[in-house]
């Protein structure tokens, strides 16, 4: 009964256009108010505790670092390096764009940001070289989703916070799948580019590749700081995030000089705004998760599923279908926050590693970002190319198949996600 009230209220409120955060908060408060003994005061503490959550503290820092890098010329230099390195291959510019997306994803935690940072530079260049606009837009729109799979990743931080798994582990679990998806997209480009009849630019001489590498080294160093720092146990993911924000600021303002001190307040305000918006959802979602747990909703569902004899294989299939549908209508953070507390205990009962479930959820969120009607990457790609939403959706569609194949592989071969974190941190 409570379950029905909780979820019905949530969906009705959201459908009315009430912000997701408030819908989550109000449906939880109403359920508590009518069905439970908890006081309003104790509910308010739950909301306040969001600000004291150590893992979540990484979010503002990663958002800030990402914004500093996309405005600070880091992406531009990564693109130059990628083109110098692989631009001469068949479909080279498109392959280089994917490489640039992977590199930027390794320093940024957001997918739309990756599309904007790389796409606004490379799409025009690809069109100039004979690629169709659809080809260029489709590739970038999909490759940009790597932003949340290749660490750091804001979506992963949120998942780790609600399920209390280690962020460091989850980050490491995203590395191999991230590289694999990048390579699969590259292979698809290489195959499709055969029909496009495009003459790739000549192979860049080694000294040019090296000089482009040196140019982008300041940005790439960030990758070393984040991954090396967490892997080596030098600092926690939260500290790594703060260090990378400061580092990105120094590089953007004093080394590349692409960002002036005058513009810094805008970048801080914009990052603060994004953080507040995310934290407001997270806080209310933690309240929602609290209601779920006190009402023992996930446990009840889990017991029923286990009693029903559902195998992990079928469960994961169902999870993927639910997530794919949800991904069409909501943005990633909201989905993770609502569904992770429900799916996590069930998965644990069925013997599925929570880290593996995290990676599966992230990959589903990637697909959600390139499917209408709510697909952040589609919106952003439409914004930077001037194509309308229908055109972008159609352009992204063929490459979406690669993502779907990849989802099946990641779902049913856990080792792809788990081998690296287990090797580093122990099983």
């Amino acid at each position, binding site marked *: 009964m409570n379950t029905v009230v909780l979820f019905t209220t949530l969906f009705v409120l959201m459908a009315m256009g009430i912000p997701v955060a408030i819908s989550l908060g109000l449906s939880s408060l109403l359920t508590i108010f009518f069905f439970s003994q908890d006081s309003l005061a104790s509910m308010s503490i739950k909301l306040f505790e969001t600000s004291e959550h150590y893992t979540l503290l990484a979010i503002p820092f990663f958002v800030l670092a990402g914004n500093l890098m996309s405005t600070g010329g880091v992406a531009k230099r990564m693109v130059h390096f990628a083109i110098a390195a692989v631009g001469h291959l068949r479909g080279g510019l498109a392959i280089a764009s994917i490489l640039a997306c992977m590199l930027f994803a390794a320093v940024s935690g957001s997918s739309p940001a990756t599309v904007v940072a790389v796409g606004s530079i490379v799409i025009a260049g690809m069109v100039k070289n004979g690629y169709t606009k659809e080809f260029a837009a489709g590739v970038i729109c999909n490759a940009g989703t790597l932003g949340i799979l290749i660490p750091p990743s804001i979506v992963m931080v949120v998942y780790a916070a609600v399920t209390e798994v280690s962020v460091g582990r989850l980050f490491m679990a995203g590395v191999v799948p991230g590289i694999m998806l990048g390579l699969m997209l590259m292979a698809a480009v290489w195959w499709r580019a055969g029909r496009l009849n495009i003459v790739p630019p000549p192979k860049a001489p080694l000294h040019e590749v090296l000089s482009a590498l040196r140019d982008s080294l300041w940005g790439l160093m960030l990758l070393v700081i984040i991954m090396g720092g967490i892997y080596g146990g030098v600092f926690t993911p939260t500290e790594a995030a*703060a260090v990378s924000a400061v580092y990105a600021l120094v590089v953007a303002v004093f080394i590349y000089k692409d960002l002036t001190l005058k513009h810094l307040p805008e970048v801080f305000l914009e990052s603060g705004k994004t953080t507040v918006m995310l934290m407001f959802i997270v806080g209310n979602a933690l309240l929602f998760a609290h209601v779920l747990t006190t009402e023992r909703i996930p446990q009840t569902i889990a017991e029923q599923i286990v009693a029903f004899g559902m195998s992990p294989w079928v469960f994961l299939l169902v999870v993927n279908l639910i997530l794919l549908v949800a991904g069409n209508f909501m943005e990633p953070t909201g989905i993770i926050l609502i569904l992770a507390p429900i799916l996590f205990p069930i998965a644990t009962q069925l013997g599925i590693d929570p880290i593996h479930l995290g990676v599966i959820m992230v990959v589903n969120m990637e697909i959600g970002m390139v499917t209408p009607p709510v697909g952040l990457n589609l919106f952003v790609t439409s914004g930077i190319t001037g194509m309308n939403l229908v055109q972008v959706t159609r352009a992204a569609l063929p490459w979406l198949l690669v993502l779907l194949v990849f989802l099946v592989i990641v779902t049913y071969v856990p080792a792809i996600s788990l081998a690296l974190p287990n090797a580093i941190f122990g099983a």
Partner: protein
Amino acid sequence: MKILDHLEEWIISLMLLAMTGLTFVQVVLRYVFDSGLSWAHELTTVFFAFMIFVGMSYGVRVGAHIGVDALVRLMRAGPRRAISVLAVVLSLVYVGFVLTGSIQYVSKMHDVGIEFDDMPIERWQVLIVMPIGYALMGFRFLQVLFNLLTGRTDSLHLADEAADAMKLKAEGDAT
């Protein structure tokens, strides 16, 4: 009103700056000088709390909160306005709930007088930012309600993340 608007923006930016700076300094102190500030982490969370709870009302003003408005957008202007009015009223109910709860909690903490673990500050002196933030947010929702009723707007103005991402990029290109 202008002063309040700018105050919100400055608090958000400065809190973010302070959090980043403090955490960074803490890392440097710990690994380079092998020392540290015992109160750094707690102070960082205090800054974070100020940023979140002051920022929420700013979010309502500039329309930064994400929502699903696909269904509402399909409606004709009349029903859409009616639904939006109801949506704002329900948001105000939410604000009322949390405002009441947080005032109860803060006054309880005030009576007990517990201090932070590592700082000589009583907890209620920081916690009070929560009712203040929610009161400010209630005020912003009342503004939206007023605009809806007087016909100055016909929706809640939800966030457009895509537009935000591109705005920042445009600013970067302009430099």
